[in-house]
């Protein structure tokens, strides 16, 4: 472990905060998905750091599953963005605030 674990936690927390800000503030659907990506990457950073701290490989295995599920999530949600854009000709989240499609 080359740096103290606290520094790593602070770093991942800041990265998670930035991703959360992207989700909360931006109106673009694609930017919201990018924010989700950043948050998941912060979670992966914590897992890799904990794996390096305790010298256990399990955290890195969990990161592999995180990557697989993130890829699945991104592909489905971008397909949904394409579909929604085809219906309403916009990617603004305010256009999709009703249950009736």
């Amino acid at each position: 472990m080359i740096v103290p674990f606290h520094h790593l936690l602070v770093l991942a927390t800041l990265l998670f905060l930035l991703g959360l800000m992207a989700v909360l503030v931006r109106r673009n659907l694609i930017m919201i998905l990018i924010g989700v990506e950043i948050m998941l990457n912060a979670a992966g950073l914590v897992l890799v750091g904990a794996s390096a701290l305790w010298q256990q490989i399990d955290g890195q295995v969990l990161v592999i599953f995180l990557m697989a599920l993130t890829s699945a999530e991104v592909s489905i949600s971008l397909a949904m963005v394409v579909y929604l854009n085809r219906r309403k000709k916009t990617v603004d989240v305010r256009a999709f605030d009703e249950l009736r499609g």
Partner: protein
Amino acid sequence: MSFEQFIFYLFAAAMLGSAMMVITVRNTVHAALFLALTFFSAAALWLLLEAEFLAITLVLVYVGAVMVLFLFVVMMLDVNLAQLREGFVRLLPVGIVVALLAIGMMAYVVGPGNFGLGKFAEPTGHPADYSNTKELGRVLYTVYVYPFEIAAVILLVAIIAAISLALRKRPLTKHQNPDSQIAVRKKDRLRIVKLEAGTRQPINLEDKR
């Protein structure tokens, strides 16, 4: 501060700065490219944290596949940027408050009271002939083989869902119709003509034309 620590903090600053640029930059294409820079810096950090295989995988999967997918969708959709920009400043204070509350709650739950590092003894490092990739494969295909298969099934579901969501049937495109293809019989396509054998007709090419 050693050289490795200097590199670590350098990439950490690059990662935070590019993530900041992601959420503030106006153009979506620029945001996607800054996200690629964020992932590159994260891969460097993971490399310094002794996760060599995952660092390479991060570059291959995220920068190679996910970012291309993002850029593909961004460039395929015709997005009106000025209209989307309106609510940014108005939503910013709300976003900051909610994000800080969430972070504070996480810090309270996962704080030093519950997960303090003093509660655990720090293990020694790996020997020199330790292979990260080999150990990862050994654990992944023995202990975690069941989650591994579930992840494979989830990826298959994602493929089918993405295709069925994005597939669009236009009226003008030509499709095959398997029903009519199967229902075809011999008499629909083939006509057997009886020709008289033995009487040779002289062919006059000039008349044929």
